C-alpha cells in the first residue's frame, strides 16, 4: 500500500515535470558552442565567438548574410548606387529602436561607420571600411556613404559582424552589455558558462518564435558529447568531435546538419623564415601532404579538399588541388634542388581544435616521410595568438580561416604568414575597385592561382560545419556563410 502510494506520487511528479518541460521547450532553447566570446563587442575584436552569439540575434548591420551566403537588406531597407559606383545612398528602415529604447537613425549609422574607420579604431577588419571617404546624414532615415573608388564588395563588407550598427549612447558598456537592434536582447552573461538572451518585444521585423535563448560554452569535446547525449543542450553548433557524429545520426532523437563553412583549413607557413622562404621548399611541403588522409584521419571524413585559399562552394572557386597533389618523390626531389636533400627541422605549433591537433600529427608523419622533421608543440589559443599570430615565431601551424572571402589577407605582407608579393597586392587593389561581376570573377580566379603557384601555405581542406540538434528543432542554418548562429527563424516542431 505504502509502496503503491509512492509510485503514484512519483508518477504525478513525472507528469508535472514532463508537462513543465514540454511547455518550456516550445519557446526556450539552449545552444551550445565550443568557444566563449572574450567580450561582447563585435566591432572591436577578431574573435568569431562574439559573432556566433550576437550576429543577427542582437546586432544588425545595414546589410546582412542570409543562410545561403547571399547579401540581403538589413537595417537599410534599400539603397541606390551612383552611376560611377562611388556613392551609396542607404534608405534606413523607420521605427527601429535599440534595446535601450533609443531610436536607430542615420546618426547612429554615421557614428558606427566613422567609429570603425577612425584612426584609433580597434575594429578587427578595418580594411572593410578603408575605402570610405565620407559618411553624411541626409535626413533621419537616409545616409550617404562616399567611397574613394568603386568597390564591388561594399554591400558584402557592410554585412560583416564587424560592421554592425551600434549606438553612441550605449557604446561605453558594449563589451559587457551589448545593446543592438536585433530580435533578441541581451539578458545575462555568466562568464565561463553561458550567455542568456530574451525576445525583443519591440523588434521591427518578424517576431522570433523563441522566447529565451541560452548559449552555453563547452570547450571539451567529451563534455560536448555527453551534454548532447544527455539532452542538456538542444543544439550544438560546430560540434567539435566529428568521430561522434555517426552515433548522433543513428539516434532518432537527434539530427545532424553537415554544411559548408568559409573555413579554409591551411598549413600556415612562415614565408619569411628560412628555409620556408624558398618557394621550392614550400612546394615540397605541399606535395608531401596527403589531404585525404588528413580529412579521414583528423575529421573522420568531414571536409572538402582545397588547393587554394577559397571556399569550394563559391562559384568562382578554381580546383587547384592538382597543383599540389600527393607526390612524396617529387617532394624529395624539390628538397634536393633547394639544397636540403638531408631534410631540415622546423616547428609545428598547434592550436586546440582537433583538426589542428590530429591534423598536425598526421602532417608531421607525412613530412617526416620526405625528410622534414617537425617539433610539435600544442598551444592554447591565447599562446597561439601571442606566439604565432602576433609574434610570428613559428615555422608551420594549422588553422582554419573562417572569415568569408578572405583571400585579401594575402595582400597584407605583415599578416602572420608574411607573404609579400607585389603582383598579388596590385591585383587585390584592382579587384577592390572593380564592380563588373565577370571581371571580378576572373580576377578572383587569377588570385587563387597566384597563391597556389607560390605555395604560400599548405592548402588542406574546407572545414565542414556540423551541427547536432534535437530532431524537433527547425530553421537552423545548415551552412556557415559567416560566423553566426541566427536564431530569428528557429522554432520547435510540435
Amino acid at each position, binding site marked *: 500500500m505504502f509502496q503503491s502510494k509512492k509510485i503514484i506520487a512519483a508518477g504525478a511528479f513525472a507528469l508535472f515535470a514532463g508537462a513543465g518541460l514540454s511547455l518550456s521547450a516550445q519557446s526556450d532553447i539552449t545552444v551550445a558552442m565550443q568557444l566563449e566570446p572574450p567580450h561582447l563587442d563585435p566591432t572591436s575584436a577578431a574573435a568569431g565567438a562574439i559573432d556566433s552569439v550576437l550576429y543577427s540575434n542582437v546586432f544588425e548591420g545595414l546589410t546582412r548574410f542570409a543562410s545561403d551566403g547571399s547579401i540581403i537588406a538589413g537595417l537599410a531597407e534599400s539603397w541606390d548606387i551612383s552611376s560611377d559606383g562611388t556613392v551609396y545612398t542607404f534608405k534606413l528602415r523607420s521605427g527601429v529602436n535599440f534595446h535601450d529604447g533609443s531610436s536607430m537613425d542615420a546618426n547612429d549609422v554615421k557614428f558606427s561607420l566613422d567609429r570603425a574607420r577612425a584612426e584609433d579604431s580597434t575594429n578587427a577588419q578595418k580594411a572593410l571600411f578603408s575605402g570610405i571617404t565620407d559618411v553624411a546624414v541626409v535626413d533621419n532615415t537616409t545616409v550617404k556613404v562616399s567611397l574613394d573608388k568603386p568597390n564591388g564588395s561594399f554591400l558584402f563588407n557592410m554585412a560583416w559582424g564587424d560592421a554592425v550598427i551600434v549606438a553612441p549612447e550605449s557604446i561605453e558598456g558594449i563589451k559587457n552589455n551589448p545593446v543592438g537592434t536585433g530580435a533578441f536582447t541581451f539578458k545575462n552573461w555568466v562568464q565561463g558558462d553561458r550567455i542568456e538572451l530574451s525576445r525583443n518585444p519591440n523588434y521591427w521585423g518578424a517576431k522570433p518564435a523563441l522566447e529565451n535563448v541560452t548559449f552555453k560554452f563547452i570547450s571539451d569535446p567529451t563534455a560536448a558529447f555527453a551534454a548532447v547525449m544527455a539532452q542538456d543542450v538542444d543544439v550544438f553548433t560546430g560540434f567539435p568531435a566529428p568521430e*561522434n557524429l555517426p552515433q548522433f545520426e543513428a539516434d532518432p532523437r537527434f539530427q545532424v546538419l553537415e554544411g559548408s563553412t568559409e573555413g579554409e583549413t591551411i598549413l600556415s607557413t612562415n614565408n619569411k623564415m628560412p628555409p620556408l622562404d624558398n618557394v621550392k621548399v614550400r612546394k615540397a611541403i605541399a606535395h608531401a601532404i596527403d589531404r585525404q588522409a588528413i580529412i579521414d584521419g583528423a575529421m573522420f571524413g568531414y571536409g572538402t579538399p582545397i588547393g587554394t585559399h577559397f571556399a569550394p562552394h563559391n562559384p568562382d572557386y578554381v580546383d587547384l588541388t592538382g597543383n599540389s597533389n600527393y607526390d612524396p618523390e617529387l617532394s624529395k626531389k624539390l628538397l634536393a634542388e633547394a639544397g636540403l636533400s638531408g631534410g631540415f627541422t622546423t616547428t609545428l605549433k598547434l592550436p586546440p581544435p582537433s583538426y589542428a591537433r590530429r591534423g*598536425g600529427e*598526421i602532417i*608531421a*608523419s607525412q613530412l617526416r*616521410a620526405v625528410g622534414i622533421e617537425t617539433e610539435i608543440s*600544442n598551444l592554447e589559443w591565447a599562446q597561439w595568438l601571442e606566439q604565432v599570430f602576433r609574434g610570428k615565431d613559428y615555422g608551420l601551424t594549422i588553422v582554419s580561416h573562417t572569415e568569408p572571402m578572405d583571400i585579401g589577407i594575402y595582400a597584407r605582407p605583415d599578416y602572420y604568414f608574411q607573404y609579400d608579393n607585389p603582383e598579388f597586392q596590385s591585383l587585390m587593389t584592382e579587384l577592390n575597385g572593380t564592380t563588373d561581376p565577370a571581371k571580378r570573377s576572373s580576377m578572383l580566379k587569377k588570385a587563387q592561382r597566384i597563391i597556389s603557384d607560390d605555395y604560400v601555405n599548405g592548402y588542406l581542406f574546407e572545414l565542414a560545419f556540423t551541427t547536432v540538434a534535437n530532431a524537433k528543432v527547425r530553421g537552423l542554418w545548415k551552412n556557415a556563410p559567416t560566423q553566426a548562429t541566427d536564431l530569428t527563424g528557429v522554432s520547435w516542431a510540435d
Partner: protein
Amino acid sequence: MKSNSLILGGLLSALVVIAALVSFLWVPFDITQLSIPDKLQTPNEVHWLGTDHFGRDILSMIMIGARTSLAVAILAVGIGFFIGVPLGLAAATKKNSLLDETIMRTNDLIFAFPSLVIAILITALFGAGAMNAIIAIGIFNIPVFARVSRGAALSLWQKEFILAARVSGKSDLRISAEHIFPNIANLLIVQGTIQFSLGILAEAGLSYVGLGTQPPVPSWGRMLADAQTMVSFAPHLAIIPGSAIIVTVLGLNLMGDGLRDLLDPRVRRSRE
C-alpha cells in the same frame, strides 16, 4: 603470504620492463608511419591489440609508451633520491640544528602543495615536454626521500655502533655514508618502488592534460586523452592504455609491499 605479493608484483613489473626493453630492438609496427585506412581496428591477428585513430598499432604504442613511462619515472625518482637522501642524512646528523630546520621546513613547504597541481604549474610555465615533466615530478620526490632517510637515520644515530664509529674519529659525512646509508637502504628501496609507481601515474596524468610527453612520442596518458571522444564506439582505445597503467602501478605497489615485508626489520620482527 608475503612472497605472493612480491612475486605477482615482480612479474607484472617485469612484464612492463621487458616490453620497454624489447621496444628498443623490435616493435611489431613502425608507429611513426600513420596508416589512416587501417584506423580503429579492434584486436585481430595482424594488430594484436588493434589500431588507434591514426591506424597505428596499439601494441607497438604501448611498448614504446612503457619506455616513456619508465624513463620519466626512473629519472624523476632518481632526482628525488639523489637530492633527497643526502639532504635527509645531512639533516639527521644534527637534530634540531639550523641545518636540520632549514632542510625540513623547506621540505614541508614543498610537501604542502598538491604535487600534481605544482607539476602542472611548472610545465605550464616552462613549456610542456618530457624533460620538464621529469623535473616537476622529481622535485616532489625530494621531500619524500629526505623525510624517510632523516627519520630512519635519526634512530640509528642513537645506536652503539654509531657511537663506536664516532669515538673512532670518523666524521659525520663518513658515518652517514658508511654506516647510516647501508642500514636504511632497504627502506629507501621500498619507498623508491612506491615513488616509482606514483611517478608513472604522474607522467600519465601530465600527458593526459597535454603537458607531458609531446607527440609523436607515444605516452599512455596521451593515448587515454586521445581515446576520450571515441570510447563510445572504440572502447579498446581507452581500455588498453588504461590497463597498461593499472598493471604497472599495481605491479610496482605489490612489489613495494612485498619488499617491505621482506626488508623492513620492524615488520619482519613482528611477524616472527
